[in-house]
């Protein structure tokens, strides 16, 4: 995993609560056996009409929101399935930061396995970000993980909280398996003691 570097981008808004993993990546696209190439199918049923053409009404298809690397959305983002194809699709499409008032548990974990930074902010602050984007869709935001802040150009920075170990994991691009294998002797001791 590549170490996280500050993201500077405009923000794409997805003003919906409970966006589930079946929407993020519909199941008909789960049959690949690779980790890459899922971006083309992100939000497929919303992005494309039945005839395969782009749905111009969908937020991410609006010219002003294209190529954004930051997504802002509502409560319980990523609920539903444990499929890691969801963060793979978001990352492959270009999103590296997702801002929401809350995330579903498994999805949140999956983000950190793939170098995506999910940022939890209170609903009022998320509202204010939606307003800023509505007012000026081109507004650039810098997401600085090191200093735990989102900096809208020319406006006061918005601080955010994150567990120190998850922060370190993203900043250094650490692999959980490598971390755990340091404790191989302890795992062995556990297995011996409990005869498992």
């Amino acid at each position, binding site marked *: 995993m590549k170490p996280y570097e500050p993201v500077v981008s405009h923000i794409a808004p997805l*003003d*919906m*609560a*409970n966006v*589930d993993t*079946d*929407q993020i990546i*519909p*199941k*008909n696209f*789960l*049959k*690949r*056996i*690779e*980790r890459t190439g899922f971006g083309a199918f992100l939000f497929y*049923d919303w992005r494309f009409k*039945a005839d395969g053409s782009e749905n111009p009404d969908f937020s991410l298809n609006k010219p002003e929101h294209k190529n954004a690397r930051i997504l802002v959305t*509502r*409560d*319980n983002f990523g*609920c*539903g*399935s*444990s*499929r*890691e194809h969801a*963060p793979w699709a978001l990352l492959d499409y270009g999103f590296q930061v997702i801002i929401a008032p*809350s995330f*579903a*548990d*498994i999805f949140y*974990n*999956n983000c950190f*396995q*793939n170098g995506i930074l999910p940022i939890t902010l209170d609903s009022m602050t998320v509202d204010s970000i939606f307003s800023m984007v509505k007012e000026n869709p081109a507004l650039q935001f810098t997401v600085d993980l090191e200093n735990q802040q989102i900096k809208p150009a020319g406006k006061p920075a918005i601080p955010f909280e994150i*567990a*120190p*170990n998850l922060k370190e994991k993203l900043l250094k691009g650490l692999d*959980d*398996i490598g*971390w*755990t*294998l*340091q*404790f*191989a002797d*302890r*795992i062995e*001791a*556990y*297995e011996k*003691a*409990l005869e*498992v």
Partner: protein
Amino acid sequence: MRPPYQELLEVCILPLVDRVSVFDFFTGMGKTLFDKVWERHLINLEGHPAAPKPDENRHLIYIDLHLIHEVTSPQAFDGLRLSGRQVRRPERTFATMDHNVPTKDRDKPVKDPISARQMEYLKKNCEEFGITLYDLNSYNQGIVHVIGPELGLTLPGKTIVCGDSHTSTHGAFGALAFGIGTSEVEHVLATQCLVQARPKTMRVNFKGKLPKGVYAKDMVLALIGKIGTAGATGYVIEYAGEAIEALSMEGRMTICNMSIEAGARAGMVAPDEKTFAYIKDRPYSPRGAGWDKALAWWKTLKSDPDAKFDAEVEIDCSSLTPQVTWGTSPGMVAGIAEKIPELASAPDEVTRSSWQKALAYMDLAAGQKITDIKIDKVFIGSCTNSRIEDLREAAAYVRNRKKAPSVKTVIVVPGSHRVKEQAEAEGLDKIFIAAGFEWREPGCSMCLAMNDDVLEPGERCASTSNRNFEGRQGKGSRTYLVSPAMATLAAIYGHFVDAREEA
């Protein structure tokens, strides 16, 4: 660290004396069922230079049982190969094929070449890494959350994970069981452990007795309606109370299965005599002295009377009614006698706009009666409701009637070969077939519609599965989550009717 006296305490002393006072004596405070299972699986990292700081809430827990299937595992095995890692304990991982398997014409090759490729990869990966696989033709094949318990792999006090969110099902046995992503699948394969933050605990007390015609599915749907789809995010739920104790293992599995739909990490039920009776003499359950030793420990797996939960929720089952979801999230649910809520009654703007969007997608109107919703197709199956008791419940409502002519198809998909065999031995298949229902081969089927069992755009389906998301059962599909009883009655009448009136 697990104190050295613990084993002695749990296995030798506890069965003989008053458990509660002994625990209190040693620990000073009551533990929840979750605490007991969690603490037994913590790897002791004390004194190790790389150990997390005490305030980090980062733990390494040992995983007793790992279940895998064809969809979320291929990238994990690729990861192992890329980094030259081995599977640490191949005998602790079991594989089956369920998500995209066909439910008919099993004697012919799998039509969808991409599904076939995923199944082929699973076979190849299991061979290469020495993992037991129950493939399409195995007697043990079935939905991963159905075969775990029926093979006796799922046992009280175990930690169980699988790359599937409905792994919470296994918590019905007093196991700590939860879904993981593919990176974590790779992590478990390589280390037999997982890095976890300790979750909070919630107790849901289902008090009172269920009325006739109301089932476990209605209990869990009512819970999700009450606390919301993110109501238990960050928690492990323990289900307790008179109504839980009265449920069969199948009913408890239905409830634990949908914990994830309330946002919970896992759901658990304390094991009791019903649990032990279910497990006894299953292919992988312990035997002889091993059984006695295990049983002594399992009997300690319940929350102490003075255990503290981070949250408590109570639901009165005596007034519960059959539940039907009307929207595109399991929390959008109403009782059979109710109407679809008015938008003005939404608690906030975000909810109001999601209701509005859901009603447009479902082509329903606020204020419409639930009993007026007409049904095109019916699906009885999934890891939520495809066990023998679910099929008995469905069959009991058929009573020599036939599906309504307006209902195009009704498919009944047993959860496993063993369930199918048992149902056929009881003649349930004949009851379904006589009613015009289709009797299929085991798999996940129309719950997620990754195989050929897909709804056409706009079709309305009464489904015993767990998710009513947009497009879940096919693009433009409209799913209504209900109990097997309610699904069967919808098949017979062509619209929803109150199971209490037919019970």
